[in-house]
């Protein structure tokens, strides 16, 4: 047992950090620290810088532009991105559809899509959830019917993150109504610019528009846009969701936020002195830091295990990551609310472009608190995670 990173790993961390210092646009970083929304251009600009460096799709196989890093290097890179902070690569393209395409797609599809994902020439969104299909995703009803050399797609997706920016969607569609619900689903990709696609923004309780409803009305999609085999889409979806086990803890994000809380708590006064001097507050902060330390160690156990034994059989501890990671993220936003006190109240009206630059940064703290309620809901709600532990780990 050894907790230490090797010299090479430490040097790698320094290299990553230095690259961020030199290359992340300062305004992008500021907005992230303050919890403001980034424009599409700001995000894409940064991702292209990253891709030019060769780090855009770091965990992909080398032949498709990956880095060949060890699992510990991936961990370090992830943590540095999150805690710098800089925008993480667009998960929908890089972590989700990309791996499905290079694992299950044909050569033509790999050539057509992968380089464009890496350079964010296409912004991808995820067509999974539907109004009637949340945790019970396999009950989805969006239909793809084969007509000649086309799929005709009808139905509705929801919670589609940043669909307003998207060029492409990967979509789970029902292609066989008679099979068991998991067996009749196919994985189809198509352009968001297709005729019959309508995007309707959903304003969330933080005031922002991160998510959308997407409607499909007789959308015509070429048959070759099916990824893998027809009716095997559920397998690909499970593969996709199981792919990103360690990033989900978002330890770096919480670390960055805790540093910010400590910093703010040294400035904001309560009872005539900085709130950090209040013993009760300080202990709450320490409690959160300790929880995060435990989670970081749990994550490192999973990372070290993957590095040694491969990703085949997931370490049971990996199921802790989503539950604890989301709880801790939520606690950090609660602590920020506590620090800012009555100045949580002012509301920053969002511009038409989704920007929220009008007011003082303190106005972003309550929205961030509201927004972070999502993290225990998305990606398989924490209740679903508990079902998974009960069944897969405890055998109940």
């Amino acid at each position: 047992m050894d907790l230490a990173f090797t010299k090479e790993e430490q040097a790698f961390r320094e290299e990553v950090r230095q690259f961020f210092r030199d290359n992340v646009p300062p305004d992008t970083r500021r907005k992230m620290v303050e919890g403001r929304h980034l424009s599409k251009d700001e995000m894409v600009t940064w991702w292209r810088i990253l891709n030019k460096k060769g780090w855009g799709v770091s965990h992909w196989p080398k032949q498709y532009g990956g880095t060949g890093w060890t699992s510990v290097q991936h961990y370090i890179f992830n943590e540095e991105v999150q805690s710098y902070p800089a925008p993480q690569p667009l998960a929908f393209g890089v972590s989700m559809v990309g791996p499905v395409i290079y694992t299950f797609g044909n050569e033509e599809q790999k050539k057509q899509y992968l380089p464009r994902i890496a350079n964010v020439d296409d912004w991808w969104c995820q067509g999974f959830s539907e109004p009637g299909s949340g945790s019970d995703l396999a009950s989805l009803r969006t239909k793809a019917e084969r007509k000649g050399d086309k799929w005709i797609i009808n139905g509705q997706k929801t919670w589609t993150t940043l669909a307003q920016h998207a060029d492409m969607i990967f979509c789970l569609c029902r292609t066989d109504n008679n099979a068991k619900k998991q067996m009749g689903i196919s994985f189809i990709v198509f352009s968001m610019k297709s005729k019959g696609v309508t995007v309707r923004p959903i304003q969330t309780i933080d005031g922002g528009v991160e998510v959308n409803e997407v409607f499909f009305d007789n959308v015509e999609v070429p048959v070759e846009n099916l990824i893998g085999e027809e009716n095997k889409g559920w397998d690909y979806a499970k593969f996709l969701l199981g792919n990103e086990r360690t990033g989900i803890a978002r330890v770096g994000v919480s670390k960055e936020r805790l540093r910010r809380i400590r910093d703010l708590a040294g400035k904001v006064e309560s009872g005539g002195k900085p709130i950090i001097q209040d013993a009760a507050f300080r202990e709450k902060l320490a409690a959160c830091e300790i929880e995060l330390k435990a989670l970081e160690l749990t994550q490192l156990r999973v990372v070290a295990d993957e590095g040694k034994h491969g990703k085949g059989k997931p370490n049971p501890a990996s199921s802790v990551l989503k539950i604890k990671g989301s709880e801790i993220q939520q606690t950090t936003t609660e602590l920020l609310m506590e620090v800012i006190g009555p100045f949580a109240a002012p509301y920053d009206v969002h511009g038409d472009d989704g920007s929220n630059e009008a007011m003082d940064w303190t106005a972003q703290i309550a929205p961030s608190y509201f927004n972070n309620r999502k993290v225990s809901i998305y990606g398989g709600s924490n209740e679903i995670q508990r079902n998974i532990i009960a069944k897969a780990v405890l055998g109940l």
Partner: protein
Amino acid sequence: MDFDLNEEQRLLKESIDGLLTDSYDFESRKKYMKEKGGWSKAVWGKLAEQGLLGLPFAEADGGFGGGGVETMIVMEALGKALVLEPYLATVVIGGGFLRHAGTDAQKAAHVPGIIDGSKTLAFAQLEKNSRYDLFDVATTAKKKGEAYVIDGEKFVVLNGENADTLIVTARAKGDRRDKSGIGVFLVPANAKGVARKSYPTQDGLHAADITFTGVEVGADAVLGNPEDSLALIERVVDEARIALCAEAVGLMDESLKTTVEYIKTRKQFGVAIGSFQSLQHRASDMFVAAEQARSMSMFATMAGDFEDAKERANAIAAAKVQIGKSLKFVGQQAIQLHGGIGMTMEAKIGHYFKRLTMIENSFGDTDYHQRRVADGGGLI
């Protein structure tokens, strides 16, 4: 970055798990509890035979040169089997003082007896009002020529009744809560002026309250600096905390396993109660708590070797907090999920809960350590 055990460590784990599976089922434990001092000489002999009592000592002193990971393996196994024998008091704490501060003569006098199982030790530290502050020492050690005369009262000394040698914290100089002026002394349990009153503890171990009245010891009884040994005490107690974290992980593993087995077999409403989602989620939360505890136990084990004393103390305090929170949840819910049977002395789960609960109140509870981390500037 590596959390796996090496080959030798795996063998160590197999051997102690095997030994305890053979000789430490719940029924045997009840018998051991009734022996003098509350534990089994025969089991202690077997631990000695397998070299486990010499594990952390240097090879030059007759030991095996084991480190923190080896102790973690043993303590986890002892926790899992709910072992009564005084490994913590004798090998971890007693041995710790000798390893860190013992002179060659002191080691020669005490270590062989520990390793061969013929002698056990006890740590006489807690006082009426000291609670968890290690520097809060009212017991005095007055210099008399080359000798020291010890006067004071110590409480809840684990293995106090059976121990051959007591390791006593006493103040050579200063006031009760001064951080300097504290010494550590090796006192024969049968020395003149030592009076022991022993009793069982809530978790089935045995402890003693010990009064020292004009107990005179020679210069050879002094461990380290007689007037400035707080750092030594902190170091050894930190090692005891690490060991307790590992023991708690073993206890939690077994508690969770026993509970999951129980809810798979216990039937109500015609089905196994483990098929109910509310119970499944509770068991999942117990798993999460136990895994977070395991992570911090490993962290504490590795932090034991940190050079920087402040960083080391902070890490171990953080681990004790996580362990404390996890053990309370796992222990309480293990009883809850067992229902009525969990309330009885005849089911073993209650005994695990009791030992876990006593660990929370040993060498600083959750609040105490959380305050230490908070006042020390945090962890991030």
